[in-house]
């Protein structure tokens, strides 16, 4: 095991830095050496991440393991390889999902249960068990409200959902299940770190070492300073030290002021930076020692390396110092003062000059729970920033304002010093800050708190009896024996404990170094021991006192931050839900009304709105939106197929061709690309090529439903109904809520004069998309053909009320009036229609016919000739017939035959009636 652990750490390190090849190589070696749940999982993960699904699945199958991670990964692989039965039996021991298995799953999978549920739901969806799928999705969301796609799937299943209930964090327990830092990751840090202590000569481990040092370093500095501070406060006899503290406290601030840095993190960083500078410059030796990055002191790394690293970091911080981030902060607070701006991490956001922090974050993210701590540290100032406004307001002068985060934090977060907002000056707030942040990084508590180590679920997160005594013990030890102790103890203790202990020890070490440094002049070892013992007492007290309140604070902070996200998710979800129910107008209103501007302008939200516009057949607006998206994010493929269809409807050949070119140059493996290309050729009336491209889209991704539908419509245009039917069916089979394909099937049936079936399918489409007037019109037509004229009229009336601008509805209504003998009404309808679509020959033709039946020969002739003028080619025969019949007015009474022609359902694609499309279809009809 001793050998194994650093190797695992190295593999995770490779994986986290996208060096998949090496990860696979190393993991394979490791697996050959030791075959355990962990190593197998590691190798499988490496395979999976380097996109070798089959291999991962084969491995997990052959070396079948019972650990939940392995089983989950196996199921995931099986699912992606479309082996649904295998996936199911990997997840569930009895091999068949049932309602009664849900609790069992939750028990077995622990913190990854939410993902297991999601996978289960996907399997159920594929095997037509919607109810189970819904159930699983709901459970997943309950465990982890951050899973947006679980919600999206719910919407796609047509489920009624209560967004407010889903996207909220009822209790902080949720964090246990949705922010899991897996046990592996925890052990990784631990193993990495401790092993490093033992084998420092190994180069790769050194790297790791640095990383872990980094993290400690960033996080624990305040702690250490606070300790120092307290220690000094207690030992008032040492004036120099308190002075030094003051200086220490002041210096960074000055620094910050100089650099226009306001946030906590940067203040910490600056502290470092400043120290580095100072170390070269002047000031007290105490300062220097105190602020020397502790990680290095703690580890026995070669001095030279230390220096190099320090230099490197120095550079980093320097480079980051100048970045303006203040603006961002202001902006944020200005636009949404009440919105907890959750994930923006206002103060560590990319602008805050904390790329070093970010990097550390990155480095660490897989290793440890530490990033989380980072986040928390970062959340702090945000909350403060909020309260700051209310509490302090204008009281603070410019100078203080330059450092608001730390300042107000002191006032509001630390319970002990609630009143020291303005009057007490810098030292106290600083101390307070440090105390609180100390507790963040205080290994025993914060680590426990944040990582999902086994203990946390046992509810003893607040009481950690072990570590304080250990502190005293370790504090007495010298640095040299620490390593030995580490090794020795490592074998004894549980992982989580190890972690906490190690960190506490490390801190101790630091303290020791500091104290020893501080008293470097003449103090003997005994003094150090004395001091550290006292200091340990303080620590003990502090930790005991603060642990509970702090844990609460932590949780509430977490919750506040998450609540911010939940607020946004709720709004987005509401909009998404409306869209998926095709309540497009409401969806647009909701999205535009509730989503904050900076989210509203994001491409994803804009695509949603564009989609709504498209569904409303407001193609101009849709095109406008999608065009903007395409310009700002040319690589974004999502919804581009909708863009292309909108362009198709508007017959914008140039734009469509350009889009197709763009996408083909970008990504030939996306079905979207080929849909766009197909649309392009379809617009050019090159149906065979279009069909070819749509087929390619199907080949590229058989699960992309829209390509089937487009292919179906294209085949309808080329009159290959059987094939078209197959493709529409394929679409419906893959997504039963794809109303467009239902509509397509209806179209085919109506062309085959199977009106009942056509109506059935149209109704099916209508049930999905209740607001679509085009479908209603077609239903009306079907009803008319089935001699249900009154019903048809009613349907058409509904269509007209839903969408008054739909010319098709009115035209059909006019025709029905005509066939019912209500000539005046028909005429009125058609005259109105003439205003909307002044260039439709059919309208004039029909008016002419009505006039003819009414005996108004002149008017009839006039309209017929207008019709001919508008459409000299297509309608020739019909109109000619009409002209001919004018000579013998009695032999051509109005009959249903003529109407039949008019009524033939238009063969439009994508269910939409556009003017252009009407031309085409009516042409062919005549």
């Amino acid at each position, binding site marked *: 095991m001793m050998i194994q652990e650093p190797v695992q750490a190295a593999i995770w390190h490779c994986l986290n830095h996208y060096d998949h090849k090496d990860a696979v190589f190393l993991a394979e070696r490791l697996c050959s050496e030791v075959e355990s749940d962990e190593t197998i999982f590691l190798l499988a993960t490496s395979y999976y991440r380097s996109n070798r699904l089959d291999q991962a699945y084969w491995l997990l199958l*052959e070396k*079948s393991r*019972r650990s939940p991670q392995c089983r989950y990964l196996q199921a995931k692989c099986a699912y992606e390889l479309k082996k649904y039965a*295998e996936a199911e039996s990997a997840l569930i021991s009895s*091999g068949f999902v049932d309602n009664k298995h849900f609790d069992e799953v939750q028990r077995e999978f622990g913190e990854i249960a939410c993902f297991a549920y999601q996978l289960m739901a996907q399997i159920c969806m594929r095997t037509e*068990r919607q*109810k189970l799928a819904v159930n699983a999705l709901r459970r997943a969301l309950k465990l982890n409200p951050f899973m947006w796609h679980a919600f999206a799937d719910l919407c796609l299943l047509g489920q009624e959902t209560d967004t407010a209930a889903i996207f909220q964090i009822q209790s902080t327990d949720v964090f246990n299940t949705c922010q899991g830092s897996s046990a592996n990751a925890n052990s990784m840090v631990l193993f990495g770190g401790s092993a490093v202590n033992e084998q420092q000569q190994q180069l790769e481990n050194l790297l790791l070492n640095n990383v872990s040092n980094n993290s400690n370093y960033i996080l624990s500095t305040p702690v250490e300073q606070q300790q120092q501070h307290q220690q000094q406060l207690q030992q008032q006899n040492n004036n120099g030290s308190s002075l030094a503290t003051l200086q220490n406290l002041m210096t960074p601030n000055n620094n910050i002021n100089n650099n226009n840095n306001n946030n906590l993190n940067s203040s910490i960083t600056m502290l470092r930076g400043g120290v580095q500078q100072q170390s070269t410059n002047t000031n007290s030796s105490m300062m220097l020692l105190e602020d020397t990055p502790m990680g290095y002191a703690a580890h026995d790394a070669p001095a030279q390396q230390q220096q190099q690293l320090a230099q490197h970091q120095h550079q980093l911080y320097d480079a980051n110092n100048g970045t303006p981030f203040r603006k961002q902060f202001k902006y944020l607070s200005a636009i949404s003062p009440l919105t907890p701006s959750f994930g923006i991490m206002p103060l560590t956001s990319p602008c805050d000059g904390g790329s070093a922090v970010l990097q550390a974050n990155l480095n660490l993210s897989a290793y440890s729970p530490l990033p989380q701590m980072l986040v928390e540290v970062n959340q702090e100032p945000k909350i403060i920033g909020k309260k700051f406004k209310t509490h302090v307001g204008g009281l603070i002068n410019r100078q203080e304002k330059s450092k608001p985060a730390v300042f107000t934090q002191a006032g509001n977060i630390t319970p002990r010093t609630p009143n020291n907002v303005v009057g007490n000056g810098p030292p106290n707030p600083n101390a307070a800050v440090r105390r609180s942040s100390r507790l963040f990084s205080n290994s025993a508590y914060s680590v426990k708190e944040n990582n999902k180590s086994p203990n946390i679920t046992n509810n003893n997160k607040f009481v950690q009896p072990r570590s304080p005594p250990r502190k005293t013990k370790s504090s007495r030890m010298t640095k040299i024996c620490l390593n030995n102790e580490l090794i020795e103890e490592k074998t004894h203790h549980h992982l989580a404990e190890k972690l906490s202990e190690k960190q506490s020890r490390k801190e101790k070490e630091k303290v020791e170094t500091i104290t020893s440094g501080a008293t470097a002049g003449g103090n003997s070892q005994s003094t150090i021991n004395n001091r550290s013992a006292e200091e340990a007492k303080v620590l003990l007290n502090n930790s005991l006192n603060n642990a509970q309140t702090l844990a609460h604070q932590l949780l509430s902070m977490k919750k506040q931050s998450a609540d911010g996200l939940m607020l946004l998710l709720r709004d987005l979800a509401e909009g998404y839900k409306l869209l998926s129910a095709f309540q497009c107008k409401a969806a647009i209103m909701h999205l535009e009304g509730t989503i904050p501007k900076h989210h509203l302008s994001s491409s994803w939200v804009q695509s949603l709105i564009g989609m709504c516009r498209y569904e409303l057949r407001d193609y101009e607006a849709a095109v406008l939106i999608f065009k903007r998206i395409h310009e700002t994010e040319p690589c974004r493929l999502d919804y581009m197929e909708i863009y292309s269809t909108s362009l198709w409807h508007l017959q914008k050949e140039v734009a469509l061709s350009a889009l197709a070119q763009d996408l083909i140059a970008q990504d030939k493996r996306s079905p979207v690309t080929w849909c766009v290309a197909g649309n392009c050729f379809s617009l050019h009336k090159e149906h065979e090529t279009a069909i070819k491209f749509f087929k390619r889209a199907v080949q590229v991704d058989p699960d992309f439903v829209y390509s089937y539908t487009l292919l179906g419509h294209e085949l309808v245009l080329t009159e290959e109904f059987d094939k078209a039917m197959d493709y529409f069916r394929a679409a419906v089979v893959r997504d039963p809520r794809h109303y467009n394909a239902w509509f397509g099937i209806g179209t085919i049936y109506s062309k085959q004069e*199977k009106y009942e*079936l056509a109506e059935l399918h149209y109704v099916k489409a209508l049930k999905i998309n209740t607001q679509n007037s085009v479908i209603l019109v077609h239903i009306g037509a079907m009803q008319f053909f089935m001699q249900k004229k009154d019903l048809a009229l009613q349907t058409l009336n509904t269509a007209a009320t839903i969408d008054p601008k739909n010319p098709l509805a009115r035209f059909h209504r006019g025709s029905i009036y005509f066939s019912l003998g209500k000539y005046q009404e028909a005429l009125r309808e058609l005259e109105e229609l003439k205003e909307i679509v002044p260039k439709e020959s059919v309208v004039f033709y029909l008016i002419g016919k009505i006039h003819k039946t009414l005996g108004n020969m002149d008017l009839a002739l006039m309209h017929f000739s207008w019709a001919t003028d508008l459409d000299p080619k297509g309608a020739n025969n019909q109109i000619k017939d009409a002209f001919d019949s004018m000579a013998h007015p009695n032999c051509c009474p109005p009959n249903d035959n003529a109407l039949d022609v008019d009524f033939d359902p238009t063969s439009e694609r994508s269910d939409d009636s556009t003017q252009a499309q009407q031309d085409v279809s009516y042409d062919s009809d005549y």
Partner: protein
Amino acid sequence: MENALFSNIKKLYDHGLYECVIPSASLLCTLLQNDRNVATLEMEYQAMLYLSNANYKQHNYRTACNQLEAVVLQRKSMLRFKSSYLTAIESSYPQFQDAELRYKIAICYQELGEYNMAMSTLQAVKTRTPRLNMLLARLMHHHGRGVSKKEIALAFKDVLRECPMSLTSIEALIELGIDGSEVHSMVVNAAALPKNIEWLSSWIKGHAQMYGCKHREAAQTFQQLNDTTSFRQNEHLLTKIGQCMYYYGNFVRAEQYLAMATMLNPHNLDALCPLAVVYEFNKKKLEQGKLIAPLEIRTTGEFSSSHWFLHAQLSYMNSKYDRSLIFTERALAMDARNIEALLLRGRLFGGLGRHKDAIDVFRSARCLAPYRFEVYKGLVACFIRLKWLKEAQTMCALAVRYFRTSPRSYTMFGGTLFHLANPTAKKSARKFVEKALQIDEHYAPGIALMASIYQDEGDTQEAIVLLRKQVASHPHPKLFAMLAELLSVDKDLDAALHYYTLALRLDPTFQRALDGINSLTKAARTGKPSDKASESASSSSVAAGDASNAASMSRPCTTPNHEWLLDCDEASTEALELSSPAGPPEDVESDTFSEPFWQDVDGELTN
């Protein structure tokens, strides 16, 4: 000369050059025969030993057999005069001891197919080693005619007494019908057994369940063994689990386990044979083809019965029935106890319409493996096809008696009864199906049969409710289609369309659903005009539905389990399907049933 020759022969034999030993030893023997002066009894005996053993090693069994018999005879005389010399030889060559020689003779007789001789040779030995006991037991078990089970069991028990970990003899004992607990106590009480091996009792329990027709329970036992002990992923264990799943009729799971077992060892024929069958039921032609690939065998000598069976199964999958029949014949010629081959042969005969042959095959399979449900299923299907309804009835009753914990047997009985014209019979069918559903409420063929019983009773709504409940958790294209048909009769066209679509989603080329969608128009049109018309329409479509259901439903009666659901499609492709419509026997035969027979049904249920 003779001494030099003898020492060289000895050298040759010691070096294992048996083919060189044969001519030289035979020369020496002749020499000793011709010149009695030089011949000593010792030398002659030893030369004979070398010669016979060399022949045995060279697989010249017939020669070896005669020579060994002679050696044994000579040994007897040697024993009388020169026992000291004999002990010298036998201490340097332990394989020349009496028991070993007799073992070899028995092997020779076995190879020559003279099993009785082999057995009597072995029985003649007074103190048998476990090796001899095992051989004897196997011979008696496989080839013994008129040997009572007790005797066979005794032989196995002899083995077990000395070697308690002989798992094969444990299995054989259980297969012979010895109670699991008895075997267990025997094993545990054996002195040589190390303590604390709990897994062994699970192992025994699993086998007891498997041969006691409780396949699902057996699978669970083995699975537990796999999950909880460190025997995880052992190929034998996986094979056992897979076999039990297969015997139970859960082909999907069976496939997973068997595939895993073959992945661990691609030459594991125990797993390969059932896997081939399971692939057939799961319709995985591609995998089936691949299965043979690692078995590409250069020499015919290696070809075993199982290999023949695999080829037979592949031909069957590819609809080459004649060839398949030949292959099964070969397989059975090599090993008459190859049950999979027997079953396949039975199915082939049944499909080709040679029901009497099929019955013969199934009957012999029943003697060998009464724990296989497929045997009863095949027999019942044949009886029904031949309209030997009484026999079918008896067989169903037997199956129910044996397979108490399986819904398959009850459904089979129910299905058989349901398709009789006799109204009382129909009524009792329901009881059986209810019982089946009581065991497993989601047993698909049971559900299907129940739905058609409801439908038959005119309670369409009930059938719809039942099916809706079932498909919500256990989707299957057949059930979807059935439900959709019921709904379209019920004039709920929208829901019918919905379920047809669902059926298509699971099986995009499902003809029944496609036809169903297209006939929705008819249902819609006929429904409208008048009540009378709609009534006639519905009745006609009920009739149609009945017909189509009869097509599908008659299958549950013959192959009442998951494979029914899988088999159905093949009806169109092949008359070869054993389970193709057994046509409700509405003619005379059904009347020949005496009424009392139906009263037995209840007794059957309570037993």
